[in-house]
């Protein structure tokens, strides 16, 4: 009887020992995964910020195309009015063939006007892109929050990045960051070129 109880205890101890080793192993693995995870998580706000910059850049570019399109629309409008007046004068002078030619020119301008409106409406792509980028930023924020929760729950400490992939992503982010501040405007480039004797 005593032997069988002792045998049962031994089995229990062995199973508890195995369980303890399993838990320890799992914790070690989590810590190993945790470091690169923490590093990747730290990059997410930067990546989100670059996405927001993307929105800003497309918005500025779109406004510039719109500004130029509106300028053309305005000058087209003036031309159409002038041509209509000239056509009336020609008709009053009985120059029908010339008036007819002016009418053709007016029709072409009207057709161009339609194309300009099409250019304007095509630019609505920027709004659609911006909405998707906003959704992506929200997803990134959410992923980062969840990663941080894991970090807090498992008490993972920050170390240097271990994997090559993390370093690559890091490098790409650094390049993006540098392009923000290091890019120069053409005016400044011309100024520097002229200082070096370029005419």
């Amino acid at each position, binding site marked *: 009887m005593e032997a069988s109880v002792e045998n049962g205890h031994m089995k229990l101890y062995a199973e508890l020992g195995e369980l303890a080793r399993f838990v320890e192993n799992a914790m070690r693995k989590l810590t190993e995964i945790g470091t690169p995870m923490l590093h990747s998580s730290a990059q997410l706000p930067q990546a989100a910020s670059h996405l927001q910059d993307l929105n800003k850049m497309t918005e500025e570019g779109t406004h510039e195309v719109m500004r130029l*399109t509106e300028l053309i629309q305005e000058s087209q409008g003036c031309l159409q009015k002038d041509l209509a007046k000239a056509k009336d004068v020609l008709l009053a002078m009985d120059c029908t063939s010339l008036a007819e030619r002016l009418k053709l020119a007016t029709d072409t301008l009207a057709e161009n006007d339609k194309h300009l409106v099409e250019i304007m409406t*095509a630019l609505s*792509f*920027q709004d659609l892109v911006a909405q998707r980028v906003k959704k992506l930023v929200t997803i990134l924020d959410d992923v980062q929050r969840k990663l941080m929760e894991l970090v807090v729950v498992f008490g993972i400490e920050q170390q240097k990045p271990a994997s090559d992939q993390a370093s690559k992503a890091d490098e790409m982010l650094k390049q993006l960051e540098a392009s923000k501040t290091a890019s120069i405007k053409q005016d400044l480039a011309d100024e520097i070129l002229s200082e070096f004797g370029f005419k």
Partner: protein
Amino acid sequence: MPADPNMKILIVDDMSTMRRIVKNILKQLGFSNMEEAENGQEGLQKLRADTYGFVVSDWNMPVMTGIDMLRAIRADEKLKHIPVLMVTAEAQKENLVEAIQAGVSNYIVKPFTAETMQEKLNKIFK
């Protein structure tokens, strides 16, 4: 009743590019009296402070969405008669049904053309 080219139109959208596009199209269609608002709340303030004949609104906006603004317009004795056209990227059937239930006058899915805008205006102001 055909659309009055002098009526005041309110364009509500959080994206400045979209407001400019809608404004440009409406200008080409003969309208010149236009105001802008960045969200539903600002839109409602403007609507309550002045007399408008038509509202073109986006759906997704911060502070107050277009659908909430539409509900507020329809619940307001002084504003409920104003036609509201929703111009939105929300292209799900449920969105359209929700907008109809809220009292939308018509609905345009982005991206859209000037012809679509003209067609919807004709339907609203027939």
